[in-house]
């Protein structure tokens, strides 16, 4: 399947060693060496892409079911319709009311047609803003879950202003006076992903990725060779470890061996602990500090060179304007 065959064999061998008296340590060391050699950046990036898109990978509503004591889904943007590809609602997380919004992929073909493969329309983003503002009114933290190949690119989305919807969702989330915890669950696909990606703490699952364009899109547009998707996945530096280095994410959430689909309950427990830890930190901050730090976090993203050195720290200077 998608996982590394050497890694699978290694897990098997380790399991065997635990349950039998045969000494397998030499074989295990050999395999570990072999595994290290197989983990080229190219293989590693592609492994994450495949796991992130695994058909059995837990979705937003799976995590909601597993992490929350209870939750109720709320529908509609109050203007046009309800978008089944971007769900949301109110939940109890360890006894505390929270609001959640997230992309929703389907489990099979029929379900995926209903969910539009997790590709949201403008009304999905407008629903997210509505629920987030409602959360702000009642002092609930907002959790967002990213898992989309991208926003829906068809004519219907253009007609209803997908660009405006994504832009204003980011702008509104920049101004929410409650903690916002963002988690990239699986596919973090382009504008559709960053649309609900503005928050105070950005988490990413171990086998998820976040990218400006799909590896396939990059291969066909920039490399002009659609067969080079694997190679372009490594060029795009889309793995959680690379994202951490660029300060695009704050924390990687560990998954069970083999990926979240192998043990969804364990993956959900791991994510729940990470979200609670993030909320505990954010709860200590007053709304003013929360917003100033959120602004500074996003305004400092980017790498460029300039001759003149900066004088005041970014956070100091931002306090002057917000």
């Amino acid at each position, binding site marked *: 399947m998608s996982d590394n065959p050497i890694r699978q064999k290694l897990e098997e061998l380790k399991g065997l060693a635990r349950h039998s008296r045969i000494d397998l340590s030499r074989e295990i060391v050999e395999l570990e060496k072999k595994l290290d050699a197989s983990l080229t950046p190219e293989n590693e990036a592609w492994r994450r892409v495949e796991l992130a898109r695994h058909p059995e990978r837990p979705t937003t509503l799976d995590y909601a079911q597993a992490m929350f004591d209870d939750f109720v889904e709320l529908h509609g943007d109050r203007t046009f319709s309800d978008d089944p590809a971007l769900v949301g609602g109110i939940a109890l997380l360890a006894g505390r009311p929270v609001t959640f919004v997230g992309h929703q992929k389907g489990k099979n073909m029929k379900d995926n047609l209903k969910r539009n493969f997790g*590709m949201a329309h403008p009304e999905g983003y407008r629903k997210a803003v509505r629920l987030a503002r409602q959360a702000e009114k009642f002092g609930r933290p907002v959790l967002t879950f990213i898992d989309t*190949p*991208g926003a*829906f*690119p*068809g*004519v219907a*989305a*253009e007609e*209803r*202003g*997908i*660009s*405006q919807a*994504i*832009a*204003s969702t*980011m*702008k509104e989330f*920049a*101004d929410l006076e409650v903690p916002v915890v963002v988690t990239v669950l699986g596919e973090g696909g*382009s*504008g559709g*992903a*960053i*649309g609900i*990606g*503005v928050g105070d703490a950005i988490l990413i699952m171990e086998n998820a990725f*976040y*990218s*400006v*364009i799909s590896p396939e*899109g990059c291969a*066909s*547009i*920039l490399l002009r060779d659609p067969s080079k998707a694997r190679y372009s996945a490594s*060029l*795009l*530096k*889309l793995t959680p470890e*690379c994202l951490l280095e*660029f300060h*695009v994410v704050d924390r990687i959430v560990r998954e069970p061996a083999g990926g979240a689909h192998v043990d969804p309950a364990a993956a959900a427990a791991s994510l729940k602990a990470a979200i609670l830890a993030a909320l505990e930190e954010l709860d200590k901050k007053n709304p003013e500090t929360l917003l100033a730090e*959120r*602004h500074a976090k*996003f*305004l400092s*993203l*980017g*790498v*460029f*060179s*300039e*001759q*003149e050195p900066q*004088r005041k720290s970014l956070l100091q*200077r931002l306090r*002057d*304007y*917000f």
Partner: protein
Amino acid sequence: MIEFGKQKGWIRYLTEHPVGRKRDERLFIDEKHSCPSCQRPIAAEEMEKTLYTCPHCTHHFRLTAWERIRSTADEGVFQEFAADMETMNPLGFPGYEEKLAAIRQKTGLKEAVVSGLCKVNGTDVVLAVMDFRFIGGSMGSVVGEKIMRAMLVGAEKRLPVIVFAASGGARMQEGILSLMQMAKTAVATQALEKRRCPYFVVLTDPTTAGVLASFAMLGDVILAEPGALMRFAGARVVAGTIREKVPDNFPLSAFHLDRGFLDAVVPRKDLKRILSFLIRTHPVAQGGRG
């Protein structure tokens, strides 16, 4: 002209450029002698009189950043921000540095946006202009930073901010960092919001994808030029994801005006007058909140 003290951090240094009535020969490269729309020949001097629109069918030619500044700013001085800011190939993307070097040579620009201070009908404004010739006007770290700073200078000095957008979207060679510029520029508009500074956007041909879905759609007033292509997803992306066939030149500004996403489509000859009117009707109270 306002005295720009050094105490606030967003303007580190200014590079002065003259803005004159006579066009700068070195900057003008878009000289075409027949209209791509109606195919009729156009004399170069005629193009100049019509601000590079076809005198026969009013087709709007794409402008370079400096031509746009010349057609928008008053005669005098354009004080450019961060003129030497450069990208650093953060992903180590193969071929990117060579591409940048070639495009810098060809356009005389350091990046896909030129931003600075100038006057429009006698009022000080912050003006940022994108140039489609520079890797399709794509937004990487430098474009995002320059747009953000233009907004923060506007908030700091309490000046109107005008952005001319022209872009193919995110700069793929900068990967996730280019995607993050969407969030960065969208977050920056909140500074203008808080300080009650007007932010005007003019969408020019073409404005698409990551730029359209961030700061370009967040103006207090959003104008567009006639016939400007504006779309979220390119034809190749659409064909690759959902196998829907979309024409190359769809949708144009009239489509978005019709659907309610633009305030007005303004022919180029009226643009400066309309912008001046907007500036005049949005006086910024000096020394307000903040």
